[in-house]
């Protein structure tokens, strides 16, 4: 009886699902949309769970492997096509019934098989757990991919609509999932893909007129929900900050909230202490602070960021010992202060302590002011934002400052990233728009005459890397702002392996101010590394070439272990951090930095809005000389892991591509012309699309404020627009030969235009109240056109009877999508975000001739010519 509803039987009639009555076709498209939605919701949810319970960048690695389920599914279906088609309906039914329970079960298994990156290299059990994570998540993705593959086969005669349903379903599900994160506790977040799966399966069975399976589906749904409710879906690693805080004997979680930025938790405990960058001299003169002075704030279990209560008057000398207080030495009681990021509020309290009349404080994460306004936190800190001196700007500080006409006496950018500039433990490559040349130019522009910009950062590398990248950026912006007076406008101090502070004063420092800063540096035992009117006289060339040899050349590592060599230095040169800072700041501020930057053993090029990264310090050509000494670049492991992931993606992709080639090139594909063209076409589309999508997520953060919102807008906006493009492309199918070249040209042109202009447009859009809508509008034409090529190509494969290629092409597309997602951060760090767009433009132009190869008719089939 079931044979009557078999897609094969229907396909054999040449009309697939179209023989079904129209409302069944609607159910089919609904099923495709919901199943595709379930897959993307699963992807987003798993990434979210990884962020909270473990390590996010491993989450993307696991997901990238899981997404190979698409390539794998297409390969299986391509190779075993005959067998597969015989049992396709049964496979679909089983797949639909197990998909939901597998989603939950896979997560439970992965959460139990926890691994910790710090043990990964040395402990085989940890590697095994990582493998279990790969497999646990690969299982549901593989099933999901098989289901979509079947759906594509069934709906191939209406591929534009099927693909549109896939895209729109994914886009809407992405939005749904992102919204669910705002109110659904993370432990129940898998409910979103489950709901979509269940609806999708029901719609599928309706479309297939299958009356028995819905009963089994009820049972499968019950099992999945029971697993979700009764098995722990999230187990926070004991090595994350919040796990440790929870073990303090008097620890109490006083606040927990979900939001677009993640899970925010605040703990109180007398065991929490914060004084970032505090002078060691505090121990000689400062009394103990009262117990329970701090709360610890954790985002996605990472932290803590300190929140402090108001200090009693006799304990206020605490601020005096912090580097954040330095600008107020020369600007006491300032009229106007701008604090670029509120964070836990220590900079704001320092400004208040310095007698600031009015403080404007920006915070791009709306969850933090909300938490500060909660009764639980207010009971501890008082109602900080009720202070009439304070004005909160609920946006990223760099966006506010680029837009404002206001001017400030002091602008403070202190330890805005709680874990330092580069973050190897969490996200290997993250955009830091607060520190780009454009942002710093805006801070400098927003200073009153004689106003001071103070930038304090963690100073934890030896030899320094990220701080020098920032110093190069500050110096470049300072030279542009002050011209000839730049050399008089900077003053910098550091505490060895603690913090570094750079001051920039509009109009230059007076001798009295320099004397005051010198005295303070001496009192606090801060090390002055740049002061006006004092040139560094060392031999820069000898120093840097010696440093380069020491860091990069083999043999020097073991030689340096000799204590005499350490004390005397190679060739008697001083490579201490202080000396390096003195040399580099001197040359950078005096505009003599070009050769210096090139000679430094690490890449310390300035940051721009197009390349806003504190990552990728190792130049590619130097990497081979470091592979046997990876421990000396441990802070780059996260970035190197991306290369490893790319290698893994390339290997898996090659295997998946090679399998049909090895087994089928001469048999399955033999009579089909244009094989290489088809391969090239779907390679170009798979890689091109994802390069655009992922790099635009990075670009749009500069307008939308944070990665979560940017991801949400991009996924939803792009996929829905692409879906619409796919739908509309059906109307032009017969005119493909004339229309598609124009489409490719238009896509490539828009990409180049975006590459050049987004840097100008996005900061302006970021100042609009309707910026989300503006971003979607900006995306629409590009994403709409990008819906044409894939749907048109697949439709022609189906029309031309190139059946074997149909699934293979889909697999190629999926495989290169995974590779592209990993390539984006690597390309961006090396060449800038826009480089991805130019690369994508080239790929879409490459697709143009490939499209005509794809159109070459199969022997005996209808051809375009006819």
């Amino acid at each position, binding site marked *: 009886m079931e044979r009557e509803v078999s897609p094969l039987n229907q396909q054999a009639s040449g009309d697939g699902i179209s023989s079904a009555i129209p409302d069944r076709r609607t159910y089919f498209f609904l099923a495709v949309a919901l199943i595709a939605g379930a897959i993307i919701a699963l992807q987003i949810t798993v990434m979210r769970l990884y962020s909270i319970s473990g390590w996010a960048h491993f989450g993307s690695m696991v997901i990238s492997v899981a997404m190979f389920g698409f390539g794998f599914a297409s390969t299986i279906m391509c190779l075993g096509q005959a067998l597969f088609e015989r049992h396709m309906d049964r496979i679909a039914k089983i797949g639909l019934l197990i998909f939901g329970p597998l989603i939950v079960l896979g997560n439970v298994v992965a959460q139990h098989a926890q691994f910790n990156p*710090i*043990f990964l290299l*040395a402990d085989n059990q940890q590697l095994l757990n990582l493998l279990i994570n790969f497999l646990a998540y690969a299982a549901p993705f593989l099933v999901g991919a098989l289901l979509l593959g079947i759906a594509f086969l069934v709906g191939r005669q209406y591929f534009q609509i099927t693909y549109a349903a896939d895209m729109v379903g994914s886009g809407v599900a992405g939005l749904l999932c992102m919204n669910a994160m705002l109110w659904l506790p993370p432990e129940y977040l898998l409910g979103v893909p489950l709901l979509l799966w269940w609806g999708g399966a029901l719609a599928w069975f309706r479309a297939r007129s299958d009356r028995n399976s819905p009963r089994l589906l009820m049972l499968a749904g019950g099992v999945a929900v029971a697993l979700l409710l009764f098995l722990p879906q999230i187990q926070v690693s004991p090595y994350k900050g919040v796990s440790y805080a929870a073990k303090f004997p008097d620890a109490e979680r006083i606040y927990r909230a979900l939001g677009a930025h993640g899970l925010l938790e605040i703990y109180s405990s007398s065991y929490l202490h914060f*004084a970032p960058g505090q002078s060691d001299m505090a121990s000689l003169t400062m009394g103990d602070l009262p117990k329970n002075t701090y709360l610890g704030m954790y985002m996605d279990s990472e932290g803590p960021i300190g929140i402090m209560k108001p200090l009693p008057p006799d304990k206020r000398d605490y601020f005096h010992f912090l580097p954040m207080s330095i600008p107020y030495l020369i600007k006491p009681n300032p009229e106007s202060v701008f604090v670029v990021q509120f964070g836990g509020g220590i900079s704001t309290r320092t400004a208040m302590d310095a007698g600031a009349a009015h403080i404007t404080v920006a915070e791009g994460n709306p969850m933090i002011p909300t938490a500060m306004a909660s009764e639980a936190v207010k009971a501890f800190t008082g109602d900080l934002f009720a202070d009439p001196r304070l004005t909160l700007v609920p946006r990223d500080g760099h966006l506010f400052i680029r837009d404002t006409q206001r001017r400030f006496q002091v602008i403070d950018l202190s330890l805005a990233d709680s874990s330092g500039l580069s973050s190897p433990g969490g996200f290997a490559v993250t955009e830091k728009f607060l520190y780009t040349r454009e942002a710093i130019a805006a801070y400098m522009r927003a200073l009153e005459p004689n106003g001071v910009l103070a930038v304090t950062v*963690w100073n934890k590398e030896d030899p320094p890397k990220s701080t020098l990248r920032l110093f190069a950026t500050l110096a470049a912006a300072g030279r542009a702002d002050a011209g000839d007076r730049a050399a008089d406008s900077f003053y910098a101090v550091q505490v060895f*392996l603690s913090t570094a502070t750079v001051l920039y004063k509009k109009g230059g420092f007076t001798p009295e101010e320099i004397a005051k800063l010198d005295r303070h540096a001496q009192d606090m035992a801060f090390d002055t590394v740049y002061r006006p009117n004092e040139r560094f006289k060392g031999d820069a060339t000898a120093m840097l070439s010696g440093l380069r040899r020491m860091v990069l050349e083999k043999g020097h590592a073991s030689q*340096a272990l000799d204590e005499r060599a*350490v004390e005397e230095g190679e060739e008697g040169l001083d*490579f201490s951090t202080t000396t390096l800072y003195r040399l580099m700041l001197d040359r950078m501020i005096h505009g003599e930095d070009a050769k210096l930057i090139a000679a430094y053993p690490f890449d310390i090029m300035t940051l721009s809005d197009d390349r806003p990264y504190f990552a990728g310090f190792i130049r590619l050509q130097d990497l081979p000389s470091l592979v046997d000494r990876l421990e000396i670049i441990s802070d780059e492991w996260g970035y190197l892991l991306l290369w490893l992931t790319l290698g893994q993606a390339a290997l898996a992709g090659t295997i998946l591509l090679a399998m049909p080639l090895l087994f089928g090139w001469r048999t399955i594909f033999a009579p089909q012309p244009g094989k290489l063209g088809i391969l090239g076409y779907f390679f170009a589309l798979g890689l091109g699309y994802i390069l655009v999508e992922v790099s635009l997520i990075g670009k749009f953060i500069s307008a939308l404020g944070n990665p979560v919102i940017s991801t949400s807008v991009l996924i939803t906006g792009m996929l829905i627009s692409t879906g619409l493009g796919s739908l509309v492309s059906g109307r032009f199918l017969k005119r493909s030969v004339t229309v598609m070249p124009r489409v490719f040209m238009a896509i490539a042109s828009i990409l180049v235009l975006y590459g050049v202009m987004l840097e100008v447009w996005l900061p302006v859009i970021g100042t609009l109240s309707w910026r989300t809508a503006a971003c979607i509008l900006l995306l629409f034409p590009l994403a709409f056109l990008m819906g044409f090529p894939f749907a048109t190509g697949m439709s022609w494969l189906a029309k031309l009877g190139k059946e074997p290629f149909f699934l293979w092409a889909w697999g190629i597309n999926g495989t290169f999508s995974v590779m592209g997602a990993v390539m984006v951060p690597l390309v961006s760090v090396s060449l800038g975000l826009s480089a991805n767009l130019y690369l994508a433009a080239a790929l879409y132009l490459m697709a143009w001739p490939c499209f005509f190869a794809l159109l070459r008719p199969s022997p005996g089939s209808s051809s375009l010519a006819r």
Partner: protein
Amino acid sequence: MHPPRKLNKAILLPLMLLVLFGTVAAYSGQDASSDNVTQRMPDDTTKANFVEYMSKNFGHDQKFLAWRYDRYQSLINNKDITRNKEKKAFLLTAREEFTLERNKSRAYDHAFLDIDYGVTISGPHLVMRMTSALDIQDSDKVLEIGTGSGYQSAILAHLTPHVYSVEIIEPLHERTKGIYKRLVQAGSAEYANVTLKSGDGYYGWEEFAPFDKIIVTCAIDHIPPPLLKQLAPNGSMVIPVGPPGKQTLLKVKKEVDAEGKVTISRQDVYNGRLSVSFVPFTKTGGGTWSGKSPL
């Protein structure tokens, strides 16, 4: 009554003296023989000699002894230990006693190991590098912040009888206390000199201050002023400092000159060869910072 009393006295006094002498002799003999073993450098001429010596004198498991010797050689090669006193401390301390059962086979690996509670036992290289950096003298009073597994304080106990250690996690403190109790009962008397408490190490241990050396094995974003205060003049401290997850191991010296001026200097424990995550980094050059206090 008198004669007998005299007689008694006459007999008892020598008897008592004899018993006293005998007891003292017996105990001192026992101590002397124990000290001879625990204070003497074990035979490290070859692996076989070492294993035989240690298993005969201390009853340690030969399998672990062989691994301990291999790790010992690499610590010497890497200059994590250079002086005899630290070499002896490493060789005499059974690291396997301080690791979890499931990790015992990796006790001497060059790696962090999990000890539950979200805490690790640092690798032998790091423990010995921190110990060597402090150059502990046999009369030094040492404070450890972060008892953890107890392995670091066990090493310290072989260097000085004045070891104080504070652990923040109460159940971990209790477990480690239990390990010490068991080891003392089994004959490792030197561990009885380790004084433990559970509490907030940020405030040091005022009651026993000042300390000649302080070793901090848990991370913080600044050097706690109470610890610097409790550091004796000319004392030194090793401490990992930095933002969450990104600490650097520093050696901090507090020097007081004849005029009472205090100088606090910071130095990378690895002289620049360590930057993050307790992994060795290669660098020459000073990396030394110092500043005069306003006092």
